[in-house]
């Protein structure tokens, strides 16, 4: 196990390096000039020049990159060009928000989708099955900003039962925060349900056809027991990995949701950083997301091998 973790760590580092280079290249080719973005296009050339010098943007790109990376590993994420404040706090705040949102979304969608997938598998080929899969698909393709707007209008404006913005007033308790996060998660649930349910269904269908489920049934176990003890556990591993691969989207890809629900998450931060050509901010965001993503996938793999004794214990036959 230790060796496994070490190799994974090594690989992760490589990935992060590649990532940082990618982003650096990106930030370099992004359009426009940092200062003129900050001061606006109508600002005077002299002012722009002055600001660029102040931000140290007149030093060569590579040295800026190295300087940043050096700092990053010392835990110093540098200073944001646009906000002119240390990246650390900005990022932390955004990450926490994104984590909250992702957590709530997953808490809702995962059980829902798994349940749906299993039911569909049990009722394979029936109307129930088709309905679940088709609805899943339909929901999956409704753009977030459409479903978002609709739920906003219905629940926040017309019924006025839930808040419009996702950001809870500072210092509010867990429940209130969750209450604020319900609306924005609905579109996410829409997006994710279809896919996760689909994978779960596939896994379950396979397991249901397996010899050992037949054995269990022929043992005379009640259906419920068969599903609980024999089907679920073996059907889940694929789902676990799929959920993990969605993390990238859940952290980095929620720009639309965050704009719509005026939620200060990392997606929006990245979006603005990218448009503002705010290299330190952008690079930090992406790297942090990368770390999160890799950690989660690693955890997923561990979970996967926990569910799979064959992988966990290796073969001794």
């Amino acid at each position, binding site marked *: 196990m230790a060796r496994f973790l070490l190799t994974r760590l090594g690989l992760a580092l490589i990935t992060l390096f590649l990532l940082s280079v990618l982003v650096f290249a990106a930030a370099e080719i992004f359009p426009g000039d940092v200062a003129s973005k900050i001061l606006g296009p109508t600002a005077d050339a002299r002012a722009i020049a002055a600001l660029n010098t102040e931000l140290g943007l007149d030093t060569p790109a590579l040295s800026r990159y190295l300087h940043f990376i050096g700092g990053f590993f010392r835990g110093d994420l540098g200073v944001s060009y646009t906000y002119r404040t240390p990246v650390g706090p900005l990022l932390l705040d955004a990450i926490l928000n994104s984590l909250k949102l992702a957590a709530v979304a997953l808490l809702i969608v995962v059980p829902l989708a798994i349940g749906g997938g299993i039911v569909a598998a049990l009722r394979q080929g029936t109307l129930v099955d088709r309905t679940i899969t088709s609805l899943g698909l339909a929901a999956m393709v409704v753009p977030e900003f459409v479903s978002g707007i609709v739920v906003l209008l219905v629940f926040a404006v017309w019924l006025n039962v839930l808040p419009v913005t996702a950001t809870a007033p500072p210092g509010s308790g867990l429940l209130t925060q969750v209450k604020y996060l319900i609306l924005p998660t609905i579109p996410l649930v829409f997006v994710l349900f279809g896919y996760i349910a689909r994978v779960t269904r596939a896994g379950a269908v396979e397991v249901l056809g397996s010899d050992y489920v037949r054995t269990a049934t022929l043992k005379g176990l009640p259906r419920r027991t068969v599903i609980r003890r024999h089907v679920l556990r073996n059907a889940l591993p694929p789902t676990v990995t799929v959920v993990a691969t969605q993390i990238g989207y859940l952290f980095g890809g929620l720009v639309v949701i965050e704009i719509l629900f005026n939620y200060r998450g990392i997606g929006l931060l990245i*979006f603005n950083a990218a448009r503002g050509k705010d290299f330190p901010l952008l690079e930090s965001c992406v790297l942090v997301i990368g770390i999160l993503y890799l950690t989660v996938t690693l955890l997923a793999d561990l979970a996967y091998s926990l569910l799979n004794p064959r992988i966990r214990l290796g073969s001794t036959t």
Partner: protein
Amino acid sequence: MSAPAHPAPMPVTAASSGGRSLLRSLVRSPAVVVGSLVVAFWVFCAVAGELIAPRDPFTVEPIAGLLPPSGDHLFGTDSLGRDVFSRVLLGARDILTVAPLATLLGVVAGTALGLLMGYRRGLVDAVTGRLVDAVLALPTVVVALMALTAFGPSNQTVILVIGFVFSPYVARTVRTAVLAERELEYVQAARVRGEGSLYIMFVEILPNVAPLVLVEASVRLGYAIFAVATLSFIGFGIQPPSPDWGLSIFESYGLINGGFWWPTLFPAMAIASLVISVNLVADGISEALER
């Protein structure tokens, strides 16, 4: 001892009957028939929408903006007074070029990658795997902005972006399948015959993971359409005045809370109908292939 990167949305299907009997079994499934009809309809619209569109979807009439659905505007008009019905009909054109092409790009690239990673394993797998991870962790926005800057805003850019973002997902799925396939004896048989790696990957193994790829593609197509719309939302997508569905939704979703639902609803329904039908067909095919 690592978990399969990205499990198949459906188990790899074992075998296939001949083409004709495949068709026969397809025609027998109502879901497939309905699906293909809808897809066919949209394809027709994309190709020859002008023939059935009652009005020119591009002529604006600002004074006649946001008329609710009525006799002479079946789906009403949008904020610039363009006929929503005609726009929905012709809206199929861009999506049916961009989304499938993007998906194709992603699936082709991803499949090639997956085959390589799965068949060659070892170092190739490790290195490519890292890259794939990196891309997976890279937020789409950043990719989009990069591409946008590098190639300027255009359908090609959109295709490129989505294809690029999708390929790693496909790659992972295919890889897992290939890892299993390569252990089968027909692969050894090919090596015994003296076939090269490329031949084995693309002529021997590929056809056997095709059903899986197909299913993946259908799911991806759904996301592609979705992604196109979302890119439009942040201004990187298909460009006005295209009647593209996603774009139309983006242009008019803000009006919903003014009670102007029609310019958003109808394109949204169009998208849904297309994607669901595509998936119905794909499911049908892969089921038929399983038999």
